[in-house]
């Protein structure tokens, strides 16, 4: 089912937290809200859920305006960060509670609960209380409780952030699989851009209550609209270098003497920020930088080198990710080359120069 937000706003007293969000989520889409902590992701999700009043704008789910509709009647289900399982009920009771409350007969409830439990591998845990479950199991029960209600839209608020790294990867895959199976619209909140990149059909990058950019994961990665999105998406982070257009070249402000070729026409003297993804550096290409390696991280398949530009230890820090870097050593001088067409230029206002 589709979800449409039309200049949605939320204010707590005088403090505006959501400052006019427009968004179109198509049926069956996996949409991820991502952004730094405090940017309003949870608030926006809770407005869609019906847990926060909407101050202004329209919320439309499946063609119907839902601003004033009760949370239980919006056709949504939500998985909370803390799981929010009822501690005094067993897994079975937790999963069936909403149905029981809606007045379904016990036979139907049992059938639906058992089906969801089977999908999620919970069958053996049905008579346990939440406190006797591991984090991953609780997470699955919370998802099961949502599935049982057969919602038109699933909402997830940072569902994996209380799990350890290994389990997080595992559950991430399980959620992706679940989406393929159920084909339900999902809105998923996270501050983790890796989760966003791996799960989303569409990423919505939020900052300070506003949408910075909406797009497919690789669109945001390759073609960010501004410095914020460029810096937020991608790990390790994009490198940013200050530069000035001089004699038809980019003179790097913090690296006297080093220049990069200019690939688009900009007026002489304009100040720009050059964005270089750590993974564009190769041995080969027409642009180059002279660096001194400070720290090397060997990940096996890949090597991250944290380097300073020039021979100066106070120079501009840069991160380099290369696949053939087992020979890199701290203190070593390194000349990296790259294709200048892959450098992104941003204006003084942080917007992309295209």
């Amino acid at each position, binding site marked *: 089912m589709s979800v449409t937000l039309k200049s949605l706003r939320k204010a707590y007293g005088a403090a505006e937290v959501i400052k006019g969000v427009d968004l179109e989520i198509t049926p069956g889409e996996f949409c991820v809200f991502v952004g730094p902590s405090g940017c309003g992701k949870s608030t926006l999700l809770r407005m869609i859920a019906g847990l926060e009043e909407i101050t202004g704008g329209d919320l439309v789910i499946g063609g119907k305006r839902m601003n004033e509709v009760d949370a239980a009647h919006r056709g949504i289900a*939500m998985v909370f960060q803390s799981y*929010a399982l009822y501690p005094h009920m067993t897994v079975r009771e937790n999963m069936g509670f909403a149905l029981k409350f809606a007045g379904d007969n016990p036979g139907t409830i049992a059938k639906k609960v058992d089906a969801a439990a089977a999908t999620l591998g919970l069958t053996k845990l049905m008579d346990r209380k939440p406190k006797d479950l591991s984090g991953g199991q609780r997470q699955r029960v919370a998802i099961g409780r949502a599935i049982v209600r057969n919602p038109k839209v699933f909402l997830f608020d940072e569902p994996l952030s209380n799990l350890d790294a290994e389990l997080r990867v595992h559950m991430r895959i399980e959620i992706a699989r679940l989406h393929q199976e159920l084909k339900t619209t999902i809105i998923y909140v996270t501050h983790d851009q890796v989760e966003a990149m791996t799960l989303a059909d569409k990423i919505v990058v939020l900052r300070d209550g506003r949408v910075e950019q909406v797009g497919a994961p690789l669109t945001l990665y390759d073609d960010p609209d501004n410095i914020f999105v460029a810096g937020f998406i991608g790990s390790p982070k994009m490198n940013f270098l200050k530069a000035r257009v001089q004699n038809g070249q980019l003179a790097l402000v913090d690296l006297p003497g080093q220049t990069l070729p200019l690939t688009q026409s900009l007026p002489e003297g304009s100040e720009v920020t050059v964005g270089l993804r750590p993974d564009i550096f190769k041995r080969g290409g027409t642009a180059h930088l002279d660096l001194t390696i400070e720290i090397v991280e060997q990940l096996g398949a890949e090597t991250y080198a944290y380097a300073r530009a020039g021979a100066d230890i106070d120079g501009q820090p840069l991160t380099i990710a290369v696949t053939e870097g087992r020979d890199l050593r701290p203190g070593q001088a390194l000349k990296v080359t790259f294709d200048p067409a892959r450098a992104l230029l941003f204006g003084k206002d942080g917007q992309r120069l295209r």
Partner: protein
Amino acid sequence: MNRLISLLAQAGLWLAAFISVFPFLWMITGATNTANDITGGRFLPGTNLLPNIAKFFELVDAGQVFFNSFFVAITGTALTLIVSSLAGYGFEIFASKTRDRVFAGLLLLLSVPFAAMMIPLFVMFSSAGLINSYIAMIAPGIASIFMIFYFRQNTKSFPHELRDAAKLDGLKEWQIFWFIYIPVMRSTYAAAMIILFMTNWNAYLWPLIVLQTNDMKTITLTVASLATAYTPDYGLIMIANVLATLPTILVFFLLQRRFVEGMLGGVK
């Protein structure tokens, strides 16, 4: 050195334990002795238990007195739990600009001593024609400021996301309170229940003022009236005390584990 400190601490604890337990032991041995033995300083168990008991049941309409005590304590406790926990829940859950000011005002009222409210309360109840009634005994305590405070504090550890989840599951506010909040907070309720039961059971000053006939009196008042006789029979008083104490001890041991959990402020 450490050993010495530990020994001293142990000794201190034993002393404190002795001071707390001694009157209790004395009450029990006293119940088996005659008044003369007790005033003579006898601490050992005696042989006068059955005569003491017989005299107690002869002098006191035990059935009526215990009924009064239980009725007042149970009804008072139940009503106070409901009203005060609802208020505590409301204060903590619903944000508003004025709630903290209202709450501070309530806490300020805690410093008004009961002695200052006694006479106005009496006048109120007497003009409502409620003197010498159960209502007069129970009503003044129901909106207990201390209990509202206690429940508000404990509600801080009630996970807000549970309330959100319940809303999505289709529960109305009162249903959230009834089906989620109360079961989740049962340790908090158990601790409050013990405190309230004891307070109600042991209530003395207000019932003394508001009750006028013997058939309305609670066991606490009855024991006190035995003690004010012209020649108090201490053996009788002690057995009356034992009987008056038993129910609170029973309630405490039944709910002991939850009481400790509740005082430690746990949501389990």
